Each structure stands twice: as structure tokens, then as C-alpha cells.
């Protein structure tokens, strides 16, 4: 599902973020990506979400070479992704329901379909009763789960998460990671960036480590 072939990313200021990286993630696989800050984890995610383009090499997602995607096609490509951020980044002037509905509204789904899917996604993260709540009234863990519901509501084949447990305590972190594991059972390919090595001990998924823009092969 995700292939990196000899991918390098050089920033004009700040040097090489990724150096000749090769990566292969199978469809339906869940992979953890670790490494100290500045190792290139975020850059890798930025290349996948087409916030940045690779300087060299090929990034291929679902058989599609990302270098062939034109700027005008980027929004449509991104609808295949579910992105979870470190802070949930909810829109504070809208209800939980409206936040989760955003990707469906953007994709132009009908009202009925939106209601059905939003409720399914909220049910999945255990927040079905909080549809009408304002995000600000929720706890940190609940907010993050709303963010996750928003990332998967349009049933993307790929979920990218950038330190999704970065702001949470160990119990909540485990809960969130278990949630991602459940998506994997539904056929989602998940790439999760985290530096919480202790947490990873609970899971039996592939762990990739980046150091100075290169994979450290264990």
C-alpha cells in the first residue's frame, strides 16, 4: 500500500531530512515509526500527505506515484487518508458531530449518509453520546478520540497518525493505540508515529526507527 523507493528530502534551509529511504507497508498492515525529534518522522508523513514533495526517489501509495499527482488533484488524493494529529486540532466553534462530519461534507455526501457515518465513527471511538457537545467541554482523551473519529469517518484505506498519544497519560495512550489496532482489523493500513517505546511493548506490530533521516535496521 505504501512504498518509498530511495526517497530523499532536502529542505533548502535545514539540510537533509530523509536520506535514501526505502519503506514497504503492506495493505492492512499497522506499522509504528519511531525516532528522536528531527529524525525525519514528520517529514515522512508530510510526503505521504503531499504537504511536501520528495526531492529524489519515488513515493507510491496504493499503486499511484505521488509525483504524478497534480496540485489540483491533491485534495482528492487526501480523501484516501485519515490524518490524526498530536493535538486533536478540532474546530472549537462547532459541535463534535460537525467536527467529525467535516471530511464527509467536503466530499459532498448527503445529509442522511453523513449522519449515519458520523454516528458509526463516534460509536467506534465510544463517544456516541457526545454528538452535540462542544469540543471544549470534553477531556483531552475524548478530544483525541473525536480527532480519530474525524480521521476515519470517510473510511480511508490509510490512516496516518503523528504522535497521537503525545499529550495523553499511559492508560489513555494504550486505549488510543488499541483503537488503531481495531481499525487495522477493518482493513485499514496504519502508519503511526510515536516515541513512546514503552507503549509499543504492548503491541506486536512492526516497528521502524528513523535516525538522522535513515532507517536503523534492527
Amino acid at each position, binding site marked *: *500500500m505504501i512504498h518509498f523507493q530511495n526517497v530523499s528530502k532536502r529542505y533548502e534551509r535545514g539540510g537533509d531530512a530523509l536520506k535514501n529511504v526505502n519503506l514497504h507497508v503492506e*495493505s492492512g498492515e499497522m506499522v509504528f515509526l519511531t525516532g528522536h525529534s528531527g529524525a525525519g518522522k514528520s517529514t515522512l508523513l508530510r510526503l505521504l*500527505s503531499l*504537504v*511536501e514533495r520528495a526531492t529524489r526517489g519515488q513515493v507510491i*501509495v*496504493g*499503486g*499511484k506515484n505521488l509525483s504524478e*499527482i497534480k*496540485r489540483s*488533484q491533491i*485534495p*482528492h*488524493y*487526501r*480523501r*484516501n*487518508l485519515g*490524518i490524526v494529529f498530536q493535538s486533536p*486540532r478540532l*474546530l472549537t*466553534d462547532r459541535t463534535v458531530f460537525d467536527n467529525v462530519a*467535516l*471530511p464527509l461534507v*467536503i*466530499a*459532498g455526501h448527503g445529509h442522511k449518509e453523513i449522519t449515519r457515518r458520523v454516528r*458509526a*465513527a463516534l*460509536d*467506534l471511538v465510544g463517544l456516541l453520546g457526545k454528538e452535540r457537545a462542544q469540543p471544549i467541554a470534553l477531556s483531552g482523551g475524548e478530544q483525541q478520540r473525536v480527532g480519530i473519529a*474525524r*480521521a*476515519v469517518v470517510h*473510511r*480511508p*484505506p*490509510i490512516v496516518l497518525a503523528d504522535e497521537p498519544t503525545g499529550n495523553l497519560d499511559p492508560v489513555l495512550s494504550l486505549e488510543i493505540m488499541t483503537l488503531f489496532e*481495531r*481499525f487495522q482489523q*477493518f*482493513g*485499514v*493500513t496504519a502508519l503511526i508515529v510515536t516515541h513512546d517505546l514503552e507503549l509499543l511493548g504492548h503491541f506486536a506490530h512492526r516497528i521502524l526507527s528513523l535516525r538522522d533521516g535513515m532507517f536503523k535496521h534492527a
Partner: protein
Amino acid sequence: MPDRSFRAEQSVSIKTRARFQGGTWLLRHLHALVFSFGQLVRQPANTILSASVIGIALTLPMSLFVLLDNVKMLTHSWEGGAQLSLYLHQGLADTHQQRLIDELHVMAEIERVLVITPAQALEEYQQLTGFDSLGAALGDENPLPGVLVLFLGDGQSTLETVDELVGELARRPEVELVQSDLQWIERLHTMVDVVQRGIGIVAVLFGFGVLLIIGNTIRMGIQNRHDEIEITKLVGATDAFIRRPFLYSGFWYGLLGAAIAWILVASSFHFLAEPVRELATLYNSEFRLAGASVDSVLTLLGAGASLGLAGSWFAVNRQLRLFNTV
């Protein structure tokens, strides 16, 4: 186990063409229209402040245009029933004169013909000047020509018809001279044209000002929603999707501003109506100050809304370019 319907859609697709179903498209625009209005309503103080600035900027050109309309109406009422004086050649035979009068009667523009014979003219002149003995002094020689005074129909008193008529009549062999009383109205018309052009320039300047005000308001709105736009882009929003609510905000600002301008103009004219009536009465005139016509109000609202759309269009496109990296 949670809802089994929750299954990832396996293939990665890149639709090159957005779904363009008429109904969906209209619904999205309607949604953005209502949504952007709701956003403005939720911040009433800000909205009224911004709309008032736009409204005041639109008030000056609008009130000048309405004043100009009043002036035009005033001059138009003076145009009604214009007169032409036809000075006939000396010694024109009566039969010729009668034939000319008959022909004039047939012409559509002319409502009435008053004949002043040389004798009548002399009599009138004597009365006016008090030279009672003038007739006796002149003997049989009356130096005054016969005059035909033509009264034009109400709809026929425009400058064009009068000019045309003057040219046509002057060419006739029986006629020595044609005089119209419309020359000063022509001067007034030219003056009104000059003023109208001046007001046009003022309107363009203020319109440009409104464009900048709305552009700046929208620009600040976009900057306040920086985070929201970034997130929306990351979940796959097209530029058009992001642009839409801002465009409609601009539309609402422009429309609200125009409505405020309308209220300001209407109240100013209401305030002026009584003194103007009194002034007109002192000049024995029935003139009444007229407020903005339906046409000009619609034009004002249309102009406000269009300026709003245009201003936000420029602002949004400029600002969205800054998001290109995301």
C-alpha cells in the same frame, strides 16, 4: 463489537474531476451562503461595525446620485411645453402663410399654433413700450414680421426633437428665423452631464474603497481561521470549498453595507424633505424632494453585493496562495 459497516474502502482513488451534480452543487452553495451568514450573526458587533464602514462609504455616492436624479426631474418638468417662435419673411402672401400653418398643424410634434400677425405684433409692442404714436409714425409700413408660436406636445420637448424641428423649419422658404427657448436647458443639461461624470468618478473611488475594506475584513477573517483552513485542506478540501464561505461573507458584508447606506440616504432625504418643500413653495414651485427610486436602490444593493464578492475574491485568492505548502 462496533458497527461492522465500518470497513475501510480499500482502493486509493484520485478523482481528477470533482463530482458536479447540479443538485449537490446548488446545495453546497446554499449551505455556504447560510453558514457564512450564521457566522456573521454570531459576531453581531463585528459585523455591524464592518458593514457600517462599508455603508457610510456607499452613502456619499448614493446620495449624490439621488440628488442628481432630483435635479434631472426638476429640469424635465421645465422642459414640458417648449415653444418655438417662427419669424416669417416680410410680405409673405397670406395663402402661403395659411398653407404653412396647415402643414404645421399636421406635424405630430406640434400641439398648437398661435398666429401673431404683424399688426398684432405692432399693437403689442406699442402697449408694452407705451409708444402709442408709433403706428402713426410708421404709416403703412409695419416693419415687424408675422410670427408663428408653436407649442410642442408634452412628450416632444426633448432637446433632440426640438433641435431637429428647428433645423427642419429653418430650411423652409417662408421662414426667416427660428428661435427656441430651450438653449438654457441645453446648457443645464450639459452642466448636469459634467456633474454626473464627476459623481461617477466619486462613485468609482468610493467603490474601490469598499473593495479594499471588504478585502481587508475577509483577509483578517482568513487569518483568524488559519488553523481551520489548514485542517480542512488536510482532510481533502479543494480551494473552492475553502473559498466559498469567505466569498459569501464578502457578499453579505457588501449587501449589509448597501442596506445601511440605503437607510442613511433615506433618513437624510427624509430629514431634508420639509425644508426643501418650504424652499420650493417660496419659489412658487410644486417641487418635492424625491427619495431613492426602486431602480437605484436595487442598483445600490447589487453594487454592494458585487463589490463584496469581488473584494473577498481578491483577498481569498491572495491568502490561499500562502497556504500552498499545505
